[in-house]
């Protein structure tokens, strides 16, 4: 009989001591087309460049090609990640009021909410930041499509879950040919607005 992979830590001790969880859970949400899944893939890649950290990314979407509620959930931990989905969020980013209303209750009491302030006008909790991501993308970078990258820069800056250089390298890698500069600029815009907001 093959008994694959009995977890070593539990095999030796009769008491089966369970190590404390250090899960950090993130959800990026919006509508189809906002690029939340791609943003989350980039975030996961950047986190995964650190070999000491595990990361799992799951996604939820409807059968529509455009529109419809979309969310990407990311779990990171130093130890093994068993349950791949999120349970209580440390960080929630939303591009729509609908997603904000729906997912806000999934935040931990001290969880952080980040919203696109042009789309989300009613912010239900205090521990939150609002940035006009889509407007910033249009005005500062010249294209609304990079709003997700600005948001990525903002949450990286606000939380420090991933170093600037790591996320920069991944954004550069993911950018379609010819758009590297635009995307890196968008990321910088994200870093800058978040840094300014933090100081206040």
């Amino acid at each position, binding site marked *: 009989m093959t*008994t694959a992979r009995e977890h070593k830590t539990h095999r030796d001790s009769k008491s089966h001591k369970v190590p404390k969880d250090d899960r950090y859970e993130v959800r990026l949400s919006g509508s189809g087309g906002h690029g939340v899944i791609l943003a989350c893939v980039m975030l996961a890649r950047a986190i995964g460049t650190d070999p000491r950290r595990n990361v799992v990314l799951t996604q939820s979407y409807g059968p529509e090609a455009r529109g419809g509620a979309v969310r990407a959930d990311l779990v990171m931990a130093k130890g093994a990640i068993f349950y791949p989905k999120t349970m209580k969020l440390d960080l929630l980013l939303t591009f729509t009021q609908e997603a904000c209303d729906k997912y806000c209750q999934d935040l931990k009491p001290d969880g952080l909410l980040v919203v696109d302030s042009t789309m989300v006008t009613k912010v239900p909790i205090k521990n939150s930041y609002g940035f006009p991501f889509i407007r910033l993308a249009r005005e500062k970078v010249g294209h609304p499509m990079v709003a997700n990258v600005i948001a990525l820069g903002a949450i990286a800056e606000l939380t420090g879950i991933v170093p600037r250089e790591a996320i920069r390298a991944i954004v550069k890698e993911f950018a379609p040919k010819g758009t590297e500069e635009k995307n890196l600029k968008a990321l910088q815009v994200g870093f800058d607005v978040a840094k300014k907001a933090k100081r206040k």
Partner: protein
Amino acid sequence: MPHRITSARKLMQGNEACVHGALYAGCRFFGGYPITPSTEIAEGMARLLPKCGGHFIQMEDEIASMASIIGASLTGTKSMTATSGPGFSLMQENIGYAYITEVPVVVVNVQRGGPSTGLPTKIAQADTMQARYGTHGDYQAITVAPASVRECFEQTVKAFNFAERFRTPVTMLTDEVLGHMREMITIPESGELEVVDREKPDVPHEWYHHFEITPTLVSPMASMGDGYRYHVTGLVHDQDGFPTANPNEIKAKMDKLRNKIVRFADEVTQLDVEMVDDAGIVVFAYGTTARAARQAVHMAREKRIRAGLIRPITIWPFPDDQLRELLAHVRRVLVVELNQGQLIHEIERVAPKTCKVAGLTRYDGEVLNPVEIFKRILEVK
């Protein structure tokens, strides 16, 4: 042509890992029809197979897809298809053809909600019994079920190994969440995992019997074009593949189909067992559900409840003997699955009388979370 990929740690989807696992195992033909949530497998194969000297064909439907991989395998090429529930149903007739003609193929079913078109983008584990009894007639199924991206790679390799070793179709059951889940994975180096190839005949052409009853009951398999003569039909056949109505030959063929797997089931059984030695309650779950179950078991241990986990990685053949032994001193077993109760009947069949069986199911397109499972552990412990 070897399949090359850098061995650095990569962020990869379960479906992508399945593609790389297949190429690692030597798969060089994919015939398929894209369907959510399995489409990334077809996409990956279409992109990578030509680079490895293989072939990809998008067929007109799943019936033809299954036919195409049987044909390709008969030429000596390791072959695979991937689908989800609706396609798996269409494939059943030809899967039966592969059982009786003893053609090694791999079928991946990335499960979604059903029946019929059901829930294209939502998770389910409702094809568990279909993988065992989907096509008609008597046969033994081999089914593997990974629970992580790394395992999607490893179990695809295993699925090919089992198919080649036993000359039989092998199903890999994953699910929507696992197929689309991304995790860091280090692709194994060439030679790191075992890769099994089918046994070829080394006898003179005139001595060859394509369905010869050997000590292992698995017959060496000549490829079409090798110069060996044989016949392939879905009718019950003799050792050369020609239809027979002789009861002795029929029985011999049916016994061969059954016993080539039943007698060597230990070779395919894979169980992941954690904290069962002192457990009062054991949770039994596979695939994505098992990950939530593991978390719930750890939550229970934190509360000093002696819980354990048994996760079958090979679901079929069902690990009867191993489970009887493992459950001998367990008072409760909780079967957790994303359907209206399928594997629970298998557990009820094998659990000793001293062990009470309880279930926890969910079938609304969502995964069971650890808290739900933990609460159920408290209820039934």
